[in-house]
Structure formats: structure tokens, C-alpha cells
């Protein structure tokens, strides 16, 4: 009898509490968070450091909730996670460093797109927006190379776990599947691979309506957000700390562009340990293009190279052939002359003629074309 009454009371009280909670507490909390610009959250909170960093960052004018959600976010999983974190916090289990989990990164991805539309569209159209499925379930790759933890250095680096936790089975026979099928369409190289949101910087002024044509070292260099997400540290390594390699072609030292941004490219499009041009996944240009920055030809978000020749070349080359129709991989991927390595001698097999011409300042010069 008493038990029944207790039960009844619970049935009445619980919904009432819930309604009260929804009407007052949630908006109240929301107001509390937004009013203080996030500062109130950091009072007794392990997010102090990220908060401080954000406060000095280029994104300081964007409220926490814009990217991280708030009490009004319509996502049960999001709230459950927060409640779990709160419980851990109250039990004194305070993490040293707050880290983004796999899901968080993918959520934030969409929010980047809200403002950085052009960049997002360009990235989406390019190879770096490849999905988990495309990267990890590729039959061509997986039948030849066993998937390994090192894959996650450059792909899905935010994934919290080993390759074993991501793909199954780990063999060359397949068929392979992602342990968490929801990841299939998610990008494996998201914005947060090369951009650190909370990094020190000034809010970006409106970009000029037209971008300068002379991309390369003279262009506006590193944005302060440029940093590599290092999976080992689970933290960013800022661009100024990333190494640029000293590349070699045999024993010859290869000249590379001083463009620091390439340090990001080199982390994944990396030569083998011996730093030989063309080894591993290296794409360092030699031959006629030696010394050019990756960004001289590749658009930074889309990596597209189309129409890039004319940004530097007069349309007609020294030989009077249109540079874009020369026999290189720019014209056709089937060409044996990779734009990264092509040399005059590849076509002028009997020797490269000396050529007089004008340099970009209009002075007469006579030069031996690079072999």
C-alpha cells in the first residue's frame, strides 16, 4: 500500500520536476553560460586552459556554444556525455587535459563550414576530404598493404583507439568494415588536422575581394591557426615548430622553397628517413620546378592544380609549346613526365639548347636551362 503511494507520488513528482527543470534551469544555465562569454564555465573547470587560449585566439569573437554546443543543443548523446563528465568531475576524476574525442571533431567540422564557406567548399571538392570508408576500406590498398597504426598518423588522426578498434578484420583478404559504421562518410582529414582553433591570433579582417595571383612565398604566409594535430601527443604542434626537411637527390642537396607552410605537407607527404626526393610519399619538386613551394601550384584547401601553370608561366614555353599541353602529368596522368620531377632533358633528349630571353624584370639574360 505504502509502496503504491510512493510510486504514485514519484509518477507525479518526476514529470513536474522535469518540466520545472526544462522551463527554468536549462534556459537559466544557458543564459549563465552565454552571458559571461564562457568565463563562468571555467571557474571550477578543467577547460581553463582551452578557454584562455580561445580568448587570445582568432576565434575569440565566437562564443563557445557556437562550436561546442550548449544546454539547448538537441542531441541526447551530447548531453549524456556532458553529464558523465560532470559526474567524473564531481568524483574528483579531473583530466589533466581536455581533449576532443572523435565525435567532437566531426561535429566541429560542420561548424567551420558555417563561416568558412569558400574554404570548406574547396576542401570538400578536393582529395583531402576523403571519407573514412574511402581511406580504410579501399580494396586496392588493403589487399596490398596491411593496415597498421601508422595509417592513423595522417588519416583519422583524431580517432581514439588503435587501427584494430577502427577496421576489422586486419588482414589482406577482407572484406573489411568499420567497427563503427557511422564513421564511414566522415572525413578522414578534417579541418582540425591542420588547423588549431584555439591558437593565438587576431580575428581575421575581411579578406580582399580578389586574391593576389602570385601565390607562393610572397603570399600571406602562415595563418596562426596552422598546426599539425599530432596523434602521439594528442595535441597540436604549431607550424613554427614543425621541421622542414633537407631533401637530397642522390648526394645532391635539393633546394626547397622556404615557405614554412610546407612543413605541414611534409608530415604526411613525407620522404623516407633518408630524405631522398621521390621516396616514400614525397613530392618535392626537382627539375624545372625545383625550389617551388607546394602552394605555388596547389590550392591550399582543394589542392587543385588546374590553371595553375599560367600563374607563373608565360603561356608559351621556351620552345614555343603551350606549357599546359606539354607531355607532362599536368596534361595527362598517363604521361611519364611527372610535373614534380620533369626536366628539360626529358623532352630535349639530345641536349637542351641555350636560350636567350628576358627575365621577369625585363633584363636580357642568357642562361643554360636547368638540365
Amino acid at each position: 500500500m505504502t509502496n503504491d503511494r510512493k510510486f504514485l507520488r514519484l509518477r507525479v513528482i518526476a514529470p513536474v520536476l522535469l518540466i520545472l527543470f526544462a522551463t527554468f534551469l536549462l534556459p537559466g544555465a544557458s543564459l549563465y553560460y552565454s552571458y559571461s562569454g564562457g568565463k563562468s564555465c571555467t571557474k571550477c573547470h578543467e577547460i581553463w586552459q582551452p578557454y584562455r587560449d580561445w580568448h587570445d585566439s582568432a576565434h575569440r569573437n565566437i562564443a563557445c556554444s557556437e562550436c561546442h554546443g550548449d544546454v539547448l543543443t538537441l542531441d541526447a548523446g551530447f548531453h549524456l556525455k556532458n553529464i558523465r563528465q560532470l559526474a567524473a568531475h564531481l568524483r574528483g576524476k579531473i583530466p589533466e587535459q581536455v581533449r576532443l574525442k572523435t565525435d567532437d571533431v566531426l561535429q566541429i567540422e560542420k561548424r567551420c563550414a558555417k563561416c568558412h564557406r569558400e574554404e570548406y567548399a574547396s576542401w570538400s571538392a578536393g582529395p583531402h576530404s576523403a571519407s573514412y570508408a574511402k581511406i580504410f576500406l579501399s580494396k586496392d590498398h588493403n589487399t596490398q598493404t596491411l593496415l597498421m597504426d601508422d595509417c592513423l598518423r595522417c588519416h583519422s588522426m583524431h580517432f581514439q583507439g588503435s587501427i584494430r578498434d577502427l577496421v576489422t578484420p586486419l588482414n589482406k583478404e577482407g572484406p573489411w568494415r568499420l567497427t563503427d559504421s557511422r564513421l564511414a562518410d566522415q572525413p578522414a582529414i578534417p579541418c582540425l588536422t591542420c588547423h588549431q582553433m584555439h591558437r593565438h591570433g587576431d580575428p581575421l579582417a575581411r579578406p580582399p575581394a580578389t586574391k593576389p595571383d602570385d601565390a607562393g612565398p610572397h603570399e600571406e604566409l602562415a595563418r596562426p591557426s596552422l598546426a599539425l594535430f599530432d596523434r602521439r601527443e594528442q595535441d597540436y604542434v604549431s607550424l613554427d615548430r614543425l621541421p622542414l626537411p633537407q631533401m637530397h637527390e642522390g648526394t645532391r642537396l635539393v633546394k626547397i622553397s622556404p615557405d614554412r607552410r610546407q612543413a605541414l605537407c611534409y608530415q604526411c607527404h613525407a620522404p623516407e628517413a633518408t630524405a631522398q626526393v621521390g621516396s616514400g610519399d614525397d613530392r618535392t619538386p626537382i627539375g624545372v620546378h625545383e625550389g617551388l613551394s607546394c602552394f605555388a601550384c596547389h590550392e591550399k584547401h582543394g589542392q587543385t592544380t588546374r590553371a595553375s601553370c599560367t600563374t607563373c608561366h608565360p603561356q608559351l614555353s621556351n620552345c614555343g609549346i603551350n606549357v599546359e599541353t606539354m607531355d607532362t602529368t599536368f596534361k595527362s596522368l598517363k604521361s611519364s613526365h611527372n610535373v614534380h620531377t620533369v626536366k628539360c632533358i626529358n623532352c630535349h633528349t639530345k641536349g637542351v639548347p641555350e636560350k636567350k630571353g628576358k627575365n621577369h624584370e625585363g633584363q636580357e639574360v642568357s642562361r643554360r636551362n636547368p638540365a
Partner: protein
Amino acid sequence: MSLKHVNAVIVGSGAGGGVVAKELAEAGLSVVLLERGKWFTPFDERKDDLRNQRTCVLGNAFGPDERNPRVYVDASGHERIVPPTYGAYSNNAACVGGGTLSYGAMAWRFMEKDFRLRSTYGTVEGSTLDDWPITYEDLEPYYEKAEWEIGVSGDDSNNIFRAPRKRPLPMPPLPPTREHQILKPAAQRLGLHPFDIPMLRNSIPYNGRGACMRCRWCVGFACEVDAKCGTHNTVIPTAIKTGNCDLRCECIVREILTSDRGRATGVAYYDSDGRLQEQSADLVVVSCAAIESARLLLNSKSRLFPNGLGNRYDWVGRNLQGHAYTGAIGLFDRETYDDLGPGASIAVCDFNHGNSGFVSGGLLANEFIRLPYQFASRTTAGIPRWGAAHKNFVRRYYRSSISVMGPMQEMPIFDSRVQVDPKVKDHWGIPVARLSGHRHQNDLLGTNFMSAKAEAWLKEAGAATVIRSGPISLDGPSGGQHQAGTCRMGSDPKTSVVDKFCRVHDVDNLYVVDGSVHPNNGGFNPVLTIMAIAYYASANLVKTRKGMGAT
């Protein structure tokens, strides 16, 4: 509660147990492979230079954890409880693959004389030195099998001292590092015979896995490109693939169960939820490494075996050995560091035998890459310890120094031993290992000699200054990751624990297959020998099982 009966239960999935599991499972036997640790991945330690198996100041990345203490008794008889991160603990990784997940992976064959030390050098006072009941020739085919199945790169053809091999190594060595190029001509000028160290590491794609990418975090760490070959990525997956091998992780074996007739009937273990389980089996294989294997035998007491299994004559746990490491560091005027891992690549075996004034010796090789903390925390006399002088030293020499080191073959000592502690128990209530003893004077003579040789090599290589390792301390027992000797292999049951097929003398279905069975431990890293013995013992096991018409 008892589980489905199987043909074999193997305790420990390291170098020995992993190989046996594969051999038995492939022969059609049903196998349960029990491992006290987890199946770790490189994500678990992520190249943490303060928390790995080599440098464990903030913990062992791959176990064991603090639930597994030991008791250490020093030379003055003072005893203390030591956690796994202390040197005195003699830690070996507790995980699938055991030490082979994170080792440096040198793959040495012992030399012929290493199996015949007593015949070669005579009796040594204060040591139980003896010949092995098997010879190098007996093991040769199994060394080869280990090299080809698990995968070894290197080139020992210039090693004129090596024991004869029928087949070359399956993979070439990695291209030489700068250190290698400096040390090689120097060794040749001294009349030594330098060569490329055999390593259980893919230098080219092999066995379906890729090649080493030469990072600087090798020994102590798990390999992200899976180029380091351990049992965890070779034989154990093969065993599981047969469908005959059930790998169970986080299982702590309490004791080996025996019948009234004195045969092993299985093991009792605590599973990952802490529940006590009994796994019955036709045969039991103990492969927990020298300290834990001895502990398990000693903890398996019954009416018939009041002092533990195999311990009728009090030999279990005796002769605990490891390696006394010694050498020198050379400081150069030019840069020697090229950031090409794993670092160790060149060795000489000129000093393993035939030295005068002491028994045996050991190899000398350049060291693995020393990460900054390892370099900076070196406390050899002659190197500043702190202050501006220390900082200058580290800055000046980190990239301009070469370290040459080697393991001295230790003399087995009856009183250097593993016992079970009468009072201290682990998290599961099982009595812990108690380590006590000392080292032999010969170890000191040998290491002094080897450091002098390392010094001479570095001087010849152009080092401006050479600082030798200090003399080793003879206090306390040896052990460490190269632990061996505690269940000696021999023909006489009164002076050994297992027979030449690794079978415990008085329990005919109980085997010990790991470094415990080595009567002496060579002047070499012992892992390839452990693997070879595991192949050899398994071959015999499979043969006798067939004879018995089992399954």
C-alpha cells in the same frame, strides 16, 4: 567452475609461449593460451619517452602494474617490497607478445661454445656452470625456423665467430647509419670483425607486413608500422587463425593443478573479472619468463609436491641470471647522430669467447637511439650531473656521441634465486616472487674487460674523449628483461628441473618453455634462443603426442 577440456594450456604468450601455441595449434591440438596482460597497441603508449618498457619512470606501458609487487633482498639481507617500475624488480613486459612487443629485437644465435661452457672452461668456483644437454647442432634447424617464420634482417656473414648456419637470413640489413659508418672501419683497423646485427625487424616488406621506417622510438616501444616482429604479430595471430587456439587475456594463473598420480591436470586462474576458473588440459606449458615461471612452479604445491612442482631437489628458482651490461660512451668533435632508428646496427663477436683471465665474455654493439631524457639522465662518473656544465654537455654531445655496449655472459650462481615470499601476496592473494643473491666475480672481470674493448673501439673511431661504464656491482641477483636460468635444462634430475625437451623431470605432461631452461644465458640477447627452443620443444611435443595417438 571448470571450462571445456583442451589438449594444452599454455601460460604466457611471450617469445616462448607464443611459438608453442602456434606449433601445437597447427598440429591440430586444442590450445588455450593464457596471458596475464592485455593485447596492447601502439596507441596505448604513443611513444611516451617517460612511460615505456625501457624508461619507466612514470610507469611500464605494457605492464605489469603495481598489483604485482615483488620482494627484493639485497646483499646485506635487507628485504623490501618493490613495484614493477624499480630496477630491482627485474621487470619483463606483461602483455600479448611479452617482451617481443616492445623489445629492441636483436636476434642472436648463441655460439657453439655457449652450449659447452663447462667443457670449454672447466668448472668455475662458486658457479653451477654446466654443459647443456643439447648442442648447437640440435637447435640449428629451429634457429633457422625462427629466423624465417618470425622474420630476421641483418647480415652476419662477416662474423667469423658465428656458429655455422645452413641458410642465410631472410632479409638484408637496414642501410647503415652514420654511427655504423664511423665504427665499421675503426673495428676493421683494430683487427675486429664487425657485421650487421641480426634483428627481428622487417628491413623490407616481409610476411605481409611493411618495412621499418626508422623512427627514433624503438626499444621499449610498440611499433606503429608493425615492422618489428614479435610473437604478437606473427605466430600468435597464426595460431588463432587455425581455429584451435583460444587466447585469453588478463588471466592470472594461481597454480598448476595436479592429480593424485602426480600428473598435471590443468591450471587454476583468475580471469579478467577476477573470477577463479579451472582449465583442464592434457598438458601444461609454462612460459612466463624465468622469474614468474619459477614462481608458478613453486606456488603449485600439493601433497605429492610439497615444495612445488619440479622442485624435488630444490633447483626451481635457482641460478637466476640476466646480463651485466657494460661499455663506454665516446664523445666526438663531429656530429654522429643522423636520427635513423633503431640505432643499434653494428656488432662484433670477437670477445664472446677466448679471452684470457676470465670465462666467456659478450658481444659489443652500438646502442639504440638514446632519447633526450635517457641521455641527460646518464650518471656515469666523469659526466656532469647538473647545472650549466650538464646542460652544456647535453647540448654539445647529444648529437656527437656514440655508445658501445654489450651483455656479459653471467656465471650461474646457486644462491641467486627466485623463491615465493612467505608473507607478501599480490592483488589476487598469490604469494609473490622473492629475489635474492649476488653475482659472480667473473662478471666483474668480464665487464671490465669489455668496457676496455669498447673504449678502444671508440678511440679508434676518433672519439676525443671516452667515458667507460663504471664497474658493476656484485650485490644482489641479476635478472631484468634477459632473465634466465631458473628451471635449468639437464639430464640429471638431481641438478636440473627439465629434461632436454623442456619437460619437467618428475611430471611427464608439464613443460617449461622460456629462458628459464637456459643453463647459461650467452653473451647475447636471449630471445632468438628462446624462440628456437620453443620450436624445438614443440616439435618433440607434437611427435610424442602423435605417438600417443592423442586428441
